[in-house]
């Protein structure tokens, strides 16, 4: 089967500073992958290039065999680091909005998750706490039947109980055809749901490995290894 994501010699700079330097990546289907790196290492840049929100200075990105564009966006579900939703909208408005926009959106699934997290669909986004807003966005993103989920810092602002629920949502949504890429600093929280990790530093991929391989070889958790590799 074809890979869901392929990056070749991907390079992106911002005003003379390299944000991504010659990145090569192959992501198989049916994996849950942690994209881990310190602040400013290039995680969000990589995700935005895959989304077509940025264009590379050199190299190529292929999603499901296609360059980022309308076709690739049909199969990619993206949770940005900052919200783009209008805060005057009610959650129910947003659900209709997503249903109109994405043919793979499952409104019933979204309402089920809202109920589980005690979020009233009639509430407006602007009346919500930071954490609740984040939950709503994640629910919208996870209610699509996409092939590639790109989650940029999905759990940073939510409480530990909701974090567990979100991780369990990711596990239950698991599908052999789809992969999930999660960028985060909160490694110990998500470590046991990940198949693979990608360590990125100063725009370079420094390590790709499975979680169990790291534990087997190093005898330590990914979290511990991260703290050693990126010691300040």
């Amino acid at each position, binding site marked *: 089967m074809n890979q869901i994501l392929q990056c070749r010699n991907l390079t992106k700079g911002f005003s003379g500073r390299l944000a991504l330097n010659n990145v090569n990546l192959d992501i198989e289907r*049916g*994996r*849950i992958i942690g994209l881990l790196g310190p602040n400013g290492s290039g995680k969000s840049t990589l995700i935005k290039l895959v989304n077509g929100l940025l264009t590379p200075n050199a190299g190529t990105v292929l999603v499901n065999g296609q360059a980022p564009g309308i076709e690739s966006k049909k199969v990619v579900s993206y949770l940005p680091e900052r919200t783009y939703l209008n805060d005057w909208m009610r959650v129910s408005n947003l659900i209709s909005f997503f249903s109109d926009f994405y043919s793979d959106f499952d409104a019933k699934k979204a309402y089920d998750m809202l109920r589980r997290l005690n979020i009233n669909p009639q509430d407006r986004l602007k009346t919500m706490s930071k954490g609740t807003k984040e939950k709503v966005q994640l629910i919208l993103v996870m209610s699509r039947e996409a092939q590639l989920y790109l989650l940029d810092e999905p759990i940073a602002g939510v409480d530990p109980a909701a974090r*567990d629920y979100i*991780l*369990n949502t990711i*596990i*239950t949504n*698991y599908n052999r055809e789809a992969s999930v890429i999660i960028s985060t600093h909160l490694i*110990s929280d998500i*470590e*046991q*749901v*990940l*198949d693979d990790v990608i360590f990125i530093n100063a725009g370079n991929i420094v390590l790709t490995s499975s*979680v*169990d391989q790291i*534990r*087997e070889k190093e*005898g*330590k*958790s990914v*979290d*511990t290894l991260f703290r050693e590799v990126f010691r300040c």
Partner: protein
Amino acid sequence: MTWELKTDRPIYTQLVDQIKLRIISGIYAPGEKIPSVRDLAFEASVNPNTMQRALSELERDGLVFSQRTSGRFITEDEKMINEIKDSLAKEQILEFFEKMEKLGYNKKDTLTLMENTLKEMA
């Protein structure tokens, strides 16, 4: 019984051990059907691929077998289950002796101490 996972060992080997414990302690009875990979992964909050790997390992050992259409079952071979129980018990004992040695007790001292403790408890 909750799933307890430590951070310094591969997750799948810990899952193998915990499922073994469930079999030995009778939580999963011989011949019983076990939950699906997806349900087990959800229960343990782990990646389904990792749970799959653990179950494949148990299958290779013969503790679990799968029937193509109806799912996975615990072996009916109670002799095998008892053997695994014995070997796990032995592991625990060896580990205990090791710890006692670190405290400065040789095996004979440890045994005496155990006997005395038992008498006190009685």
